[in-house]
């Protein structure tokens, strides 16, 4: 695949530069650290700050979720590589409004280490930091080892819910509890049809043979749980719903939010082809789709494929999902 870039080493800096230009009504670059993207509403006194961060290449995640009643600041890493501890620390400082900071991020070794160090640095500044670690990717570990699972697109619900709770004036404990509930209620699965390429590497990191697909693929091309013949869209959709809901064990009549995201190089129309079947399958299992999201919400460079995330809802989560928000990747109640 042919790509747009100048020097591969500058891609992240140029991505951030273009992003803050394009969305200056909602975000800006930190004057102290060019790898921190701030919501224009960040650091409001008395409000709990909400921070996330991760490797680049997942746009609109992570930077696209900074905005009003959304994430306050985002630590930006190299492509597919955790931000530094210093960058997480700078993001935490920028988000702090005196009421503590919730760092809501995904379960990856690098992010875990860098957030851990950033939290120590923030403690020296007198800023209280609590974390929620997303682990919604079903195929990355068995249910009984959920703490080992990766965080994927369920993070979007975790951010939305945590940030909405902060916007309502909840304290740090309340924000953390809401974000934790959101991710606990999320299950996700990815299916990959084609690999992705880091421009500086120049060739795909892994191969998916023609006619095959990887079920359970990760957000960086971590190989899936199984490789099998590429099925029809409906069969793939059925498989995705089965994987997610078999892990979830939701009582009949449960209401759910559903998010289908492309992985970067799948045409949007195919996401709707999948979604049409996904919603029917979910409802056939006695659940009610309360709110669907379909689009490129959390990508993996030029990977071909899609992810499905299902979040089980209760009254609190529904009301928090409805809190108006405005960020480059998501608008609610406008």
């Amino acid at each position, binding site marked *: 695949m042919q790509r747009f870039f100048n020097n591969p*080493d500058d891609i992240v800096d140029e991505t951030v530069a273009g992003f803050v230009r394009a969305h200056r009504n909602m975000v800006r670059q930190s004057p102290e650290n060019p790898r921190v993207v701030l919501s224009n509403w960040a650091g409001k006194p008395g409000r709990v700050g909400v921070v996330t961060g991760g490797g680049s290449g997942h746009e609109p995640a992570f930077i696209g979720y900074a905005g009003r009643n959304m994430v306050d600041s985002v630590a930006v890493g*190299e492509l597919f590589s955790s931000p530094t*501890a210093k960058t997480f620390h700078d993001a935490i400082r920028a988000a702090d409004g005196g009421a503590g900071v919730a760092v809501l991020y995904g379960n990856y*070794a690098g992010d875990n*280490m860098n957030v851990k160090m950033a939290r120590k640095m923030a403690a020296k500044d007198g800023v209280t930091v609590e974390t929620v670690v997303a682990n919604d990717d079903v195929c990355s*570990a068995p249910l009984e080892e959920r703490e080992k699972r990766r965080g994927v697109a369920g993070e979007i619900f975790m951010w939305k819910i945590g940030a909405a709770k902060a916007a309502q004036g909840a304290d740090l404990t309340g924000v953390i509890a809401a974000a934790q509930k959101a991710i606990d209620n999320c299950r996700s699965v990815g299916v990959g049809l084609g690999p992705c390429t880091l421009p500086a590497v120049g060739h795909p990191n892994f191969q998916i043979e023609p006619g095959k697909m990887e079920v359970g693929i990760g957000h*960086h091309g*971590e*190989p899936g749980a199984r490789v099998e013949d590429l099925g029809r869209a409906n069969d793939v959709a059925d498989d995705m719903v089965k994987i997610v809901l078999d892990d979830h064990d939701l009582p009949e009549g449960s209401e759910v939010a559903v998010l289908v995201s492309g992985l970067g190089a799948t045409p949007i129309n195919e996401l709707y082809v999948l979604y049409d079947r996904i919603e029917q399958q979910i409802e056939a299992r006695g659940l009610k789709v309360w709110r669907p999201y379909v689009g490129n919400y959390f990508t993996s460079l030029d990977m071909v494929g899609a992810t499905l995330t299902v979040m089980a809802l209760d009254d609190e989560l529904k009301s928090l999902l409805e809190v108006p928000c405005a960020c480059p990747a998501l608008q609610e109640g406008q």
Partner: protein
Amino acid sequence: MTSIPNAGAAQILREISATIVENKAWLSEIDGKIGDGDHGVNMAKGFGRAAERTPPDASLTEALQTLSDVLMAEIGGSMGPLYGMMFSDMADALGDIDQIDATSFARMLRAGLDGVQEIGSAKKGDKTLLDTLIPAVETFEAHLAMGDSFGVSLAAMRKAAQDGRDSTLDMVARIGRSARLGERSRGVLDAGASSCALILSGFADEITARLENA
């Protein structure tokens, strides 16, 4: 000679950095088989930048600290904090000594290993850089305890590091991104163990050359 001057020993780390940069594509390739393929890119970026910012006449202590600062503040990922802690604790262990002998080098190695283990949670056998670092450090200490010379101990350390790296070939990853592969991670070297072997071999080669030429 039984020791080398600390002053000017920054050149050792500059040579190691050059080796890392030379092996950028190889490290990314092995990382790409079971990880995301960015290990070589990020290592080359960090080591390359640190080498540019390290004057050739600086001490090894200063060079290690500069490298740590770059890895911690500019590289991130998993290797930023892991190697960042390793080199920072190595620099602290050397401190302002004038001569680096086998005993101070052993102290430096042990401090580096402790630093990695403090920030990370891997154990030996998990298919990580520790599978290179632990046997290398233990082998160096053992040879020193037996009364072997600095040079002989370094050669043994280099061999242990390379054997340690090779031992990851048949391991199943238990931590980090490749851990999710289970059995499918077997048959590929671990990228961190491979870069760690390059670093330790570089120390052995460069110090040995200085001991012999002194």
